[in-house]
């Protein structure tokens, strides 16, 4: 899959669900991309590098979200 197409899919997919949740597991993103994990990882890494996505971590579990979205970012003045 082309990077730009993947980015569009992720941005659309996550924006659509924004009202319900703002943080997603890696698997959720791979599902949106309909790609195997290793291929999905390359695309998703690039989205983090470009600042489209950002990491969230509880310490034990990692999640991804559109940069600057979600309750956590707001509550902690990080948006």
């Amino acid at each position: 899959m082309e990077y730009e197409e993947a980015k569009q899919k992720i941005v659309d997919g996550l924006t659509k669900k924004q009202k319900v949740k703002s943080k997603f597991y890696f698997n959720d993103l791979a599902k949106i991309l309909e790609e195997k994990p290793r291929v999905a990882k390359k695309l998703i890494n690039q989205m983090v590098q470009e600042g489209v996505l950002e990491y969230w971590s509880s310490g034990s579990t990692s999640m991804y979200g559109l940069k600057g979205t979600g309750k956590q970012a707001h509550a902690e003045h990080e948006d």
Partner: protein
Amino acid sequence: MAKHETPLLDQLESGPWPSFVSDLKQEIESRAKNEKGVEFQIPQDVCEDLLGILELSYKHGRTHWKHGGIVGVFGYGGGVIGRYCDQPEMFPGVAHFHTMRVSQPAGKFYTTKYLKDICDLWEMRGSGLTNMHGSTGDIIFLGTTTPQLEEIFWELGHNLHQDLGGSGSNLRTPSDCVGQARCEWACYDTQAICHDLTVEYQDELHRPAFPYKFKFKFDGCPNCCVASIARADLSFIGTWRDDIRIDQEAVAAYMGGELPPNGGAHAGRDWGPFDIQKEVIDLCPTKCMWLEGGKLKIENRECTRCMHCINVMPRALRIGNDRGCSIFAGAKAPILDGAQMGSLIVPFIKVEEPYDEIKEKVIEPIWDWWMEEGKNRERLGELMKRQGFQKLLEVTGFKPDPRMVQEPRHNPYIFWKEDEVEGGFKRDINEFRKFHQR
């Protein structure tokens, strides 16, 4: 006078054990005096506020730390564990109190200068409090603010030549026992492979794409000093294929009391004369040792390499010469499902650079399976339970082996697949009807 009254914490200091409260107070005093003239980049009284918020938690019986956060260094999904307190007005020093995991050198060897250097860095840019080492194995820096993260990362990378460790749904910082550097029982070079895999799997360490955490741990022998069998998704435990080497003269010296058993570890009390029958032979779990004409004999085919006899009589008994490791999969702590020990997946494999067989035949196929089939927050051990050990054998291509059976009749359901059965599942109906009516 202390910034916050902490009677509940003070009471902890009265016990017989070393107290973290005393340690914190020591750091409070040192930061307050600042004899070295450190330019503190986070509040000087951070440790006072830390004591204060803990005292409040003791009073309330509830935590005042929130869970998780977005913080990190650019491009890294792990290594920083964001921590914010929920009483920042009362305790501004710990409003942000992020933990950083710093990769430890294999075998945890340091020079004194290096230790001083990391402490100086952390004194200036963090709370000064460390945990050497966390149960993960990492150097743990406890407590800093968001703006300091990139600064510390830069210093670590450029001056101290160390990387952040793993956290989150990543490969965690691989850790190992001291191994061949100091231990004659090490059946392979734990430090070499630990370092090699850490470098090889940088992407897995820093960019989370696993369902959950994944740990490698390396023990040079079955004594398991890093407890890999209980807590690593893949445990590498040293073993040997040939015979335990016996020095009969040294056996006689132990029996005659000239050599102290267990290297003298139990010398603090008089346990009476050493009794090889009672203390070694009868305790062998496989009952494969005996005395014959004053000589110690071992039926090595039955020996499970439990290490007991070698631990008791290290001068007389030594590990074999044909060495490698066994690999176990799926150990984990009880967080989601129950606790689980590793299951044997590779009975014996040579551990030799560049470790291609271990990488290509064990690690990577297991990752591919788990990344595709694992549910969110499912450890490898849970996936193994859900889909079955047979599935793990299938994805790695290892043949089933009696040594993989933990106990008989654990799981009676082994189903044949069509390609495993001669002639497949098709039958000749006419042949069948010769014997059975409709």
